[in-house]
C-alpha cells in the first residue's frame, strides 16, 4: 500500500512546498493537508482540510483517513509573524494535539516528521563554532520563540519515548534564504540598509529553501529516524552577506540594542526580532555530519543560498514582483480531484479511469 501522508500548515510556505514535492511521488498514495486558510500553491491531488490552528479535530481526521505519516511543518520560527499568544497556540498546543492524535490507541501513524529550527541552540559567546545535535545550549533561552521551540522538541522527545515503534524525525534547519521565502533576513537583505551590531561581524549559516523541502522529502521517503541539523556548507561573515546583496550595514550600538531595534522595527526600517539580535552578535554554526550520513547533502552551500536569493532579488528589481500567486477555488479543486469527467494520468503516462483517483494497484510499491 502506498504512503498516506498528512501535512500540517498546507496554507503556509513549507506545507505547500512539501505537499507539492510529495504528491509527485508515485509511492505516496494520498496527501492530506491541514491549514487555517486556503492553500497558496497549486496542488495536483493533495486534499485540503480546514482546521483551527491548534488542530483539535485531528484525532478524528487521523482515524478517518488512516494516515501513516505526519509531516509537521507548521511551526512558527519567526516572532515578527505572529503574536506571543498565537505562537504558543500554534507551536506548543498545536504540536501537543498533533502528537496526541498520532499516539492514540490503535493509531495508524508510523512516522512523524517535525520541521524545527537551529534557533533551539540560541547564540552566545560561550558557544562552540559548530553545534552537534547533542551539544547543549550554552545559556537558557531568553526569547519566546526559542522557548516555544524547545518546548515543542520536548513534546516530540516524550512522544518518541512513549511510541518506540513510530519513526520520529526532527530536522533543525538553519536560517533559510531563497527566491521565494520571506523572513526577517530576506526582508532586511532586500533593503539598502541592513542592521548589524556595531563591533560585531558574526559568522552565519544559511540553508536554501529547496534544500529544506528536499530534506523533508528525504527523511519522509526513507523513514529516517532521529534528530538532525540541516544547513548549507560553510559560514560567511554577516558583513559579507550584506555586501553580496548590495546592501550597506546599519550598525546599531552594542548596548541598548534591543530597545533601539524594537523602535526601528516599529518604524518599519528594519526587522530585528529578539531571536536575531544575539545571532548578529555571536553567529551560529551547526554540524551537518549526521544528516550527511543518512545520504542527504544540501545542493546549496551557505554562499550558494545567498547567491540563489540574490538572483531572485535582482530579477524582482528588474521585472517587479512575482506574477500573481495562485488562488485556491474550492469548487474547481473539487472538480479536478473527484469528478468522473476528469481523465487522470497515472505516473506511467496511461490514463486512469478509477474515479476515486487512487493509483492503480500495479503502481503501488511501499517503500
Amino acid at each position, binding site marked *: 500500500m502506498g504512503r498516506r501522508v498528512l501535512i500540517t500548515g498546507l496554507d503556509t510556505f513549507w506545507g505547500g*512546498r512539501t505537499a*507539492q*514535492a510529495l504528491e*509527485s511521488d508515485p509511492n505516496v498514495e494520498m496527501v492530506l493537508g491541514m491549514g487555517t486558510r486556503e492553500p497558496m500553491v497549486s496542488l495536483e491531488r493533495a486534499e485540503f482540510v480546514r482546521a483551527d490552528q491548534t488542530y483539535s479535530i485531528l484525532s478524528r481526521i487521523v482515524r478517518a483517513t488512516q494516515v501513516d505519516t505526519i509531516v509537521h511543518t507548521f511551526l512558527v520560527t519567526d516572532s515578527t509573524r505572529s503574536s506571543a499568544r498565537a505562537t504558543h497556540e500554534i507551536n506548543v498546543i498545536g504540536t501537543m494535539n498533533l502528537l496526541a492524535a498520532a499516539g492514540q490507541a490503535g493509531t495508524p501513524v508510523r512516522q512523524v516528521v517535525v520541521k524545527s529550527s537551529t534557533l533551539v541552540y540560541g547564540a552566545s*559567546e*560561550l*558557544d*562552540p*563554532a*559548530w553545534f*552537534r545535535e547533542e*551539544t547543549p545550549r550554552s545559556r537558557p533561552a531568553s526569547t519566546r520563540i526559542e522557548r516555544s521551540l524547545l518546548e515543542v522538541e520536548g513534546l516530540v522527545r516524550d512522544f518518541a519515548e512513549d511510541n518506540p515503534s513510530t519513526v520520529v524525525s526532527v530536522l533543525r534547519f538553519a536560517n533559510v534564504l531563497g*527566491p521565494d521565502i520571506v523572513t526577517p533576513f530576506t526582508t532586511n537583505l532586500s533593503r539598502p540598509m541592513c542592521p548589524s*551590531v*556595531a*563591533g*560585531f*561581524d558574526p*559568522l552565519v549559516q544559511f540553508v*536554501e529553501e*529547496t534544500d529544506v523541502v528536499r530534506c523533508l522529502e528525504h527523511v519522509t521517503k526513507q523513514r529516517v529516524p532521529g534528530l538532525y541539523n540541516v544547513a548549507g*556548507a*560553510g*559560514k*560567511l*561573515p554577516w*558583513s*559579507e552577506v550584506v*555586501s*553580496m546583496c548590495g546592501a550597506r550595514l546599519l550598525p546599531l550600538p*552594542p548596548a541598548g540594542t534591543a530597545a533601539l531595534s524594537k523602535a526601528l522595527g516599529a518604524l518599519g526600517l528594519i526587522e530585528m526580532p529578539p531571536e536575531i539580535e544575539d545571532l548578529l552578535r*555571536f553567529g551560529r*554554526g551547526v554540524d551537518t555530519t549526521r544528516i550527511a550520513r543518512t545520504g542527504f547533502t544540501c*545542493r*546549496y*552551500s551557505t*554562499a*550558494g*543560498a*545567498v*547567491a*540563489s536569493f540574490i538572483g531572485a532579488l535582482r530579477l524582482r528589481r528588474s521585472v517587479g514582483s512575482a506574477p500573481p500567486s495562485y488562488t485556491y477555488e474550492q469548487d474547481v479543486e473539487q472538480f479536478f480531484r473527484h469528478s468522473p469527467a476528469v481523465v487522470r494520468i497515472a505516473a506511467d503516462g496511461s490514463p486512469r479511469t478509477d474515479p476515486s483517483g487512487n493509483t492503480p494497484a500495479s503502481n503501488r510499491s511501499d517503500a
Partner: protein
Amino acid sequence: MPLERKTETEHDVARLSDVDEWGRSAHVRELARRAFAPMYDHWFRVEWEGLEKIPREGGALLVANHAGAIPSDAPVIMHGIEKELDRPVYGMADYFFRKMPVVGTLWSRVGGVTAHPDNAFRLLHDQGQLALVFPEGTKGPSKSYTDRYRLRRFGRGGFVEIAMRSGVPVVPIAVVGAEESMPIVFRLPGIAKAIGVPYFPVTANLLAFGPLGFALYFPAKFKLRVLDPVHFDVQPCQERYSKSRVMEEAEEIRARLQETLYDMLRERRSVWFG
C-alpha cells in the same frame, strides 16, 4: 512544481572575503603580521630555539606559559610560527573576548578561536591544524610580578584530554620575556567586577606611561624554547579518558615547562638583552 534551479556550490559562488569558517582571514592576518613585524624583530627581538620540533604538517596542540597583563606571548608565538613555518596557528582564548565589540571580531580575524573542546577537536583532528592554548588560562596573566615565571595550575588537564581525543601531540613552548613586558604591580578586583572583565591590572607600564601603558610594552628580550613533543599512546576519538592519566600527563608537562623556564632564567644575563 517549482523549476529545478541551477545547483550552486561553494566553488562557483564568488566570495568577497577570505574569512574562513573560524573567522580567520589570511589577508587580515597578513596585515597584522606586517604591523607586528617591527615589534617582533626590533622591540622584543624574538629568538626561537627548537622550532623544528613543531610539525610542518598535521595537527598539534601548542602549549605555553602565559604572562603579561595584556599577554604579549600569544601574538609572538603566532607570528613566529606563521613566519617560520608558513602555516596558520589558531589561538584558543577565553570566550570573554567574543563578548567585546571590535576586539572580539579582530581577534577572530587574526586567528582567535573560542577555547571550546569541540572547536579544538575540529581544528586538530578533522582539519590537522596547529592550535595554541595557555592551560593556565587567565590565572597566568593576572598574577603579580612577584610570582613571575611560577606556573599556575594547568586547569583541569583539559588540554591533554583534547590532544588524546584528537590523536595529536602536545608541543610545549617555554616563553621568557612576556612577564617583564607588562608586569602587574597590583590588581583592582572592584573595577574588574564593575566592568565585567576577569581582572583589572595596574601595570608598571601604566605607572610609567599613564594610559599609554595599556598599549606600550617594555622592550623585554623574548626567548622561546620548543620542548620535545609529547605523544600519547591512546585510542583517539574516545568520549572520556582516565582522569588520573590525564592529570598525570598534564602535571608532567607543567613540570617540564617549569624546569625549562628556570633553566632559561639561569642562562639569562639581562631582562632587556637576554
